[in-house]
């Protein structure tokens, strides 16, 4: 009996051995080696094109099956009395309050800020259950396609990506620790650059991120500050796989902490203890010290301070704009059809988020390097920050908002309310002054 099972066992072992070897060889040849050298076979782009064709087909089927969308647009008609000449001086009227009341109720119904913290709604379904909120059951073929997609994503892509992620992170920690043993000098910097780039490229492939970089001649240089809009922690990987940056952040515990500590051995990053983060002067001092040393890498910073859903850019914190360095703005825009990159930190933890990322189709994004900007004469930090923000919003096709995304529960500044009061009073009282003068 034992003799009967042995050859069978052997065969199984041999088969498993062969398949693992083949698997790892393919992985190495098609993914790891290109990552090391920074070349690409174009597999991911082919994959993206195929997916687009599938989505187009699916959209057609959905539109065919969908009922007529009802567009009820009843205008908000304002209370119009007789057509009085608008240029004559308006008096206060009891009905003036209607304007503010209307605006108030509208903001209860829908305001600019709250909706930026939930995933962007898609115009058409992309065959992921998580983005299916408005699309009903259409046809058998679509369901089959969805099922097939489920199989591919969870059965093939997810294990592949997880393997790659572990490889990438593991290599990063190991190699940077090794490099940390070298004496400071050009060799160390050179090696550290290569290692960082390689590991980030592996991580990029771990997410199947298909990134298009525009205007690379504007890439951030040493002694500068790279500023970008923030959608998710993946932004760091996307930018760092195309250039070397010094990261800024708070030291975490656990795996993150291990990665941070080993990274800083190879090249100087700026990590803060939790207690130091509150001290704005300390933060500013460390940033400006780093920036003044031209041999150090450009700092990567996300001035919004929180993750926004990639439809808008919110208020930039002025701290990083006060230190007087050249600012290199970068706009990052994700294509939501392939996977929603937004991290809703109140809904998902980090691990959950990464799993969702790795089980979507792909992460497709565009990165634009904008020309460097410096603070002009007579401009204060806030105005400079707004100017940079406007440039990023314009390039990325995002809505430029002045609201503070970080104020999830805190009070809004009174200056905003005063502006409204100023405008209204100018209308009423300003004109009365004119009358009294005449």
């Amino acid at each position, binding site marked *: 009996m034992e003799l009967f099972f042995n050859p069978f066992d052997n065969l199984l072992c041999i088969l498993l051995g062969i398949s693992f070897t083949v698997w790892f060889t393919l992985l190495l040849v098609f993914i790891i080696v290109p990552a090391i050298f920074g070349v690409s076979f174009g597999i991911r782009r082919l994959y993206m094109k195929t997916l687009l064709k599938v989505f187009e087909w699916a959209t057609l089927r959905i539109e065919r099956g969908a009922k007529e969308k009802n567009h009820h647009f009843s205008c908000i008609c304002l209370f119009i009395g007789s057509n*009085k000449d608008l240029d004559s001086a308006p008096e206060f009227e009891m*009905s003036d*309050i209607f304007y503010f009341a209307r*605006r108030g109720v509208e*903001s209860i119904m829908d305001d600019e800020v709250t909706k930026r913290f939930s995933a962007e709604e898609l115009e058409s379904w992309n065959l992921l259950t998580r983005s*299916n909120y408005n699309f009903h059951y259409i046809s058998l073929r679509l369901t089959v396609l969805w099922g097939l997609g489920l199989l591919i994503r969870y059965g093939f892509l997810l294990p592949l990506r997880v393997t790659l992620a572990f490889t990438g992170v593991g290599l990063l920690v190991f190699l940077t620790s090794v490099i940390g043993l070298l004496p400071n000098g050009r060799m160390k910097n050179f090696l550290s650059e290569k290692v960082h780039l390689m590991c980030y490229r592996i991580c990029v492939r771990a997410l199947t991120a298909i990134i298009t970089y525009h205007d690379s001649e504007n890439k951030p240089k040493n002694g500068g500050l790279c500023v970008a809009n923030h959608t998710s922690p993946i932004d760091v990987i996307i930018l760092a796989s195309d250039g070397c940056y010094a990261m800024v952040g708070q030291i975490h515990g656990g795996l993150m902490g291990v990665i941070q500590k080993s990274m800083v051995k190879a090249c100087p990053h700026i990590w803060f203890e939790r207690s130091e983060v509150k001290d704005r002067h300390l933060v500013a001092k460390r940033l400006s010290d780093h920036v003044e040393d031209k041999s150090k890498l450009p700092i990567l910073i996300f001035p919004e301070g929180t993750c926004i859903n990639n439809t808008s850019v919110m208020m930039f914190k002025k701290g990083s704009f006060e230190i007087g360095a050249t600012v290199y703005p970068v706009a990052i825009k994700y294509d939501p059809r392939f996977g929603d990159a937004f991290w809703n930190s109140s809904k998902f933890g980090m691990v959950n988020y990464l799993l969702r990322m790795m089980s979507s189709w792909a992460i497709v994004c565009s990165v634009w390097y904008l020309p460097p900007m410096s603070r002009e004469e007579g401009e204060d930090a806030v105005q400079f920050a707004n100017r940079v923000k406007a440039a990023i919003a314009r390039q990325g096709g995002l809505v430029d908002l002045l609201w503070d995304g970080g104020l999830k529960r805190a009070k809004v500044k009174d200056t905003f309310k005063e502006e409204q009061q100023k405008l209204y*009073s*100018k209308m009423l009282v300003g004109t009365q002054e004119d009358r009294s003068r005449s």
Partner: protein
Amino acid sequence: MGSSSSRLDRVPGAKDLMEETGFSETNILCLYDRFEVLDREERGYLRLEDFEAIQQLAVNPIGDRIIGAFVFPGRETLDFPSFVRVLAHFRPTDTTWSRSGSQPEPANSRTRKLRFAFSLYDQDGDGKISRAELTEMLQAMLGMQVTDEQLQSIVGRAIQEADLDRDGAISFDEFKKMAASGQTGLKSVSSIMYRTKQQQQQQQYICGEGGTEQVHLKHSCQTLMFIFC
């Protein structure tokens, strides 16, 4: 991938609400989505803090009064049906309803809308807008931007025009008459603020999309628009 009727099942008491308020199915779903977004901690009801967290409302000069119409002493938590009932005031006015008919007065009748506006002025609920209440309202809308004298003169003039029975306060009927005869009213306020906004380069957001008469809400809420007149 269920059908839309199962989506309506998520909303408790949806059918009754639809009948009572006249909102359509899509409207109710949209309102429920919004309710869930505002109810960040998923308690099932809204409180004062949830409204105060809406930044655009916090910068509205009469924002706290509007919140007070939703959440007030005696009703400190707002469940979904109450939320919908208050918002029902802002549906487009149904011109087919007539006072002499058998149906009860709907929430969005012109009178009820004016009552809502009246209640924003009349904070103590005595049915009259006293001089003090009018002053407070103007104070809220104008802030530090006018002197006391200018404020008093505006208040004085307004009371003089509105107070027909000379009792020193404005009753609801007098208010209705004023609102009806409001010559410049809403349109000029918003269009003037729009023009002034255009002169100021920076404040893009203050008047929102500025005096435009159509406001587009989140595209799944495209069916929901309001009239306040």
